[in-house]
């Protein structure tokens, strides 16, 4: 007899394919108790805002007990909420309130490493070599093991090994030295981590973002990334989830080349979703070069994935705009194009928000968002980008893109009533992006604001499942400033056309296959001339875009 599986909040098993995900940090979003730090009760009060925006899924950055040396990705207790953000009850209240509004909730599972303050590590460093406790982490008498492994945080970490005097040994870490990697060769580690998974899934969360997933297992003579043993760990986790729960989702964070990332879908037996890391920088390159080729290339090289799997698409997130998965030449181009201020560079990336990257040009922000929404995958909106928030690259590390949400022109941007010097971070107060100029309240009151535009685009995208589920066909018009593609799902056929250039562009699209269909512009519901046997002419304004439904009125 099959055991009863715990149902998730979503009705459909593949709910993530039609989702619009909003990524936020509890700490940065809204402070309810005036201590200067965002918290769950604050988030609770803002759920209606997210519901009105049309968001269907919240992705919460780590909120667990942590010394916060890596903004919570250094977890010291996987089963407790950081007291600064509230209590476990507060989290559950938010979870249920989100579900009541039809929103799913996914949280982080930083499974590759813990904080060095985690009891497992404290116990391990004191345990005898060879003991089960010691074996929770990866130790060595030398810092020369796994020598072929690259360093990820090149700006801060000279080695993947750090000496621990108490243990009398080196420990392995792919990220900061205060984040020792767990040892998945020890079965007890996976056992413990499955206990953590059960703790949160039983509570009702709808998915887990698996942080830093390629680095779980190490082997000599390899890059220690994407190893078969790592995939075995993910498969074991997926089997466990499928056996006990329904309608839950695993999202892989694997900053790798597409072929390697697609391996994390397995045969529908690993993760349901994975980020499409290579696409994002090429969108920025494409719009800067006013040339579709970088975008089209990234999409053409995207491997086919199982039907029930999905790419997660994003423009910006809480980290630097990573350039690890582009060529050296492309990386140099991105630096030259997007980092006039060298302070904006961090590791192999750029620590800026969307609006500053695009010169605060409303047309470019809209175009990039329209591209994000029209490509195959599920879009992720980073908190604040819906109002065009700015950043502060002088705050160090990635803190400049994690500043308080700008709710209003009130003190502290309406984020908190604490004295300004008690805030966890300064609010943005430069002349262009200051909270007095860029905030939710002002944009709510302005029907022409970016927020209203974003809300309508989210609603429009949700209206057409073809965006999340349909096939993709890239059109090759002569004018390379034009990126045009067709999406199809059943009877729904959409034509999306974008002008990547700052000046008006004409284009002739070869649409003979759709002869007899009438393009109906989706935003204004205006019928364009019916498609015939000859190339279809369009003219697009600077950074203009069209989404058309190709309708056949005799249907």
């Amino acid at each position, binding site marked *: 007899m099959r055991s009863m599986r715990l149902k998730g909040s979503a009705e459909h098993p593949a709910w993530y394919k039609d989702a619009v995900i909003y990524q936020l940090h509890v700490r940065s979003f809204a402070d309810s108790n005036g201590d200067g730090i965002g918290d769950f009760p604050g988030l609770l009060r803002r759920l209606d805002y997210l519901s*009105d925006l049309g968001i269907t899924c919240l992705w919460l950055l780590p909120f667990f007990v942590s010394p916060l040396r890596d903004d919570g990705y250094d977890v010291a207790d996987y089963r407790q909420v950081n007291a600064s953000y509230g209590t476990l009850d507060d989290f559950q209240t938010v979870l249920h309130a989100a579900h009541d509004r039809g929103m799913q909730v996914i949280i982080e599972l930083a499974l590759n490493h813990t904080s060095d303050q985690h009891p497992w590590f404290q116990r391990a460093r004191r345990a005898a070599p060879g003991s089960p406790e010691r074996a929770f982490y990866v130790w060595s008498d030398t810092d020369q093991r796994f020598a072929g492994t690259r360093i990820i945080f090149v700006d801060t970490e000279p080695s993947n090994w750090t000496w621990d005097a108490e243990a009398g040994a080196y420990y392995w870490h792919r990220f900061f030295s205060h984040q020792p990697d767990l040892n998945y060769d020890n079965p007890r580690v996976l056992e413990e981590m499955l206990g953590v998974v059960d703790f949160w899934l039983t509570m009702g969360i709808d998915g887990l973002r698996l942080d830093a997933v390629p680095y779980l297992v190490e082997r000599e003579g390899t890059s220690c990334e994407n190893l078969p043993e790592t995939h075995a760990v993910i498969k074991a986790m997926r089997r466990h989830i499928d056996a006990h729960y329904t309608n839950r989702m695993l999202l892989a964070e694997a900053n790798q080349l597409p072929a390697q990332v697609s391996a994390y879908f397995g045969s529908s037996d690993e993760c349901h979703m994975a980020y499409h890391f290579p696409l994002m920088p090429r969108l920025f390159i494409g719009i800067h070069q006013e040339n579709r080729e970088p975008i089209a290339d990234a999409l053409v090289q995207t491997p086919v994935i199982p039907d029930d799997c999905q790419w997660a698409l994003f423009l910006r997130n809480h980290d630097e705009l990573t350039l690890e998965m582009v060529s050296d030449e492309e990386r140099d181009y991105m630096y030259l194009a997007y980092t006039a201020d060298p302070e904006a560079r961090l590791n192999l990336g750029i620590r800026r928000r969307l609006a500053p990257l695009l010169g605060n040009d409303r047309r470019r922000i809209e175009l990039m968002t329209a591209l994000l929404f029209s490509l195959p995958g599920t879009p992720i909106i980073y908190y604040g980008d819906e109002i065009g928030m700015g950043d502060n690259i002088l705050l160090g590390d990635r803190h400049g893109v994690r500043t308080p949400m700008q709710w209003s022109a009130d003190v502290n941007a309406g984020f908190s009533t604490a004295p300004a010097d008690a805030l966890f971070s300064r609010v943005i107060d430069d002349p262009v992006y200051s909270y007095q100029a860029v905030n939710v309240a002002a944009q709510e009151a302005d*029907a*022409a604001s970016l927020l*209203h535009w974003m809300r*309508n685009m989210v*609603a*429009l995208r949700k*209206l057409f*499942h073809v965006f999340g589920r349909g096939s993709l066909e890239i059109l090759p018009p002569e004018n390379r400033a034009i990126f045009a593609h067709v999406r199809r799902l059943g009877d*729904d056929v959409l034509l999306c056309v974008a002008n990547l250039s700052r000046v008006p562009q004409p284009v002739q699209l070869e649409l003979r296959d759709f002869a007899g269909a009438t393009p109906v512009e*989706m*935003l*204004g*519901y*205006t*019928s364009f001339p019916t498609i015939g046997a000859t190339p279809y002419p369009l003219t697009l304004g600077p950074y203009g875009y069209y989404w058309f*439904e190709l*309708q056949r*009125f005799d249907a």
Partner: protein
Amino acid sequence: MPEIAQDVRQLIIGIPMGPDADDATGRRASALASATVGENRTVVVARPGGPVSAGDGLPRTGGGVIDVQYTLRPQDAQDVPYHGVAGRARAIHAILTQAHAAGAACLIVDTRAAEPTGWIDGFVQALTEDQADFVGPVYGRHPFSSGLTHGILAPLFAALYGHRLQYPVALHFACSARLIGAVLDDPMWDRGAALPAIEWGLASAAAAASLRMAEAPVLTGTREDRPILGLSTTAAQLLGVVFADIERQVRVWQRVRGSKPVLRVGTSPEHEPAPAVDAAALAESFRSAYRDLHGVWEEVLPPLSILQWRRLTTVSQDAFRVPDSVWARTVYDFTMGHRLRVIPRPDLLHSLTPLYLAWLASFVLETQGAPAEAIDARLARVRTAFEQEKRYLVSQWRWPERFKPVKLRRQR
């Protein structure tokens, strides 16, 4: 849509009864049962739960008649629907549940308004021979006496879902086993706004699933089937049903363009003689209401519409005409106003009634004395206007900032 095991020959004839059903209603139910029960036909009478009193003339379980009970909630008894049968939607759900268990199709009949005569065979034919999934009725009513249906509901249903059902809201209709299986667990049964005319939701669900629609004549005899409540409350309830459904089915109706006739089984009844309608009084009702309500309408309608309605307050009776496009846009503006909650929804729904009266006055003045074919042709032009102006609704729905009433007090 999942495949539902169905026996196309099995038919349940459902009679929903409210708590106030009188002896006459009970006797008519009995008569219907004895006239129709037979091989493959079962009558199900649904009544509110509680002890069944003896001697009320209702059929009992046995002999092809099933008596089922449903739970009447306190709210059902308070919110009396326009047709006067409190809890009708819950009764229908109970009947459909029985049909589903039997894998049968179901015909809902209101015994207050129809003689149990041979017309049932038309519905049976539509369900069995023509494999229809939703069968609506065709009455012989004159359009003057069913203006809400002909002026708003039918053209709106056609524009939204592409099917020219003459009576998308009616006391008689039929569903196939397949449709019943698809809708029994639908959330609409728990939405108060949908309950006064649940058949609209069933018809839209059938359209959404690309199921077959048909129509069959109903002979209503001479029974009183007029709304129990006043026009304003009736209109508010029916439009509440429609607007709630529009929000529910947004992914469906925005894909539909144009409309097609539905399959007609049997011969359409002749129009009954035109009732006496005092168009001047209707127009005057509108003019009086304009003085009180134009401030409310300015929160829903754009300047051009307001000007056109205002013009009607000053023209002579000969020139009293509501252009079809203005009427269609006005209904669509109220749809948007309802969605965006620009004013409290009950106020919005009630405030449409005087505008409807103006439309009805205009329609009567234009078609009085005309032959039935000419009136039908005129109604077809109204429907066409709703279809042509639908892009106005879709455009605003997708970009609510385009909804620009004279006074904007939007609460999103």
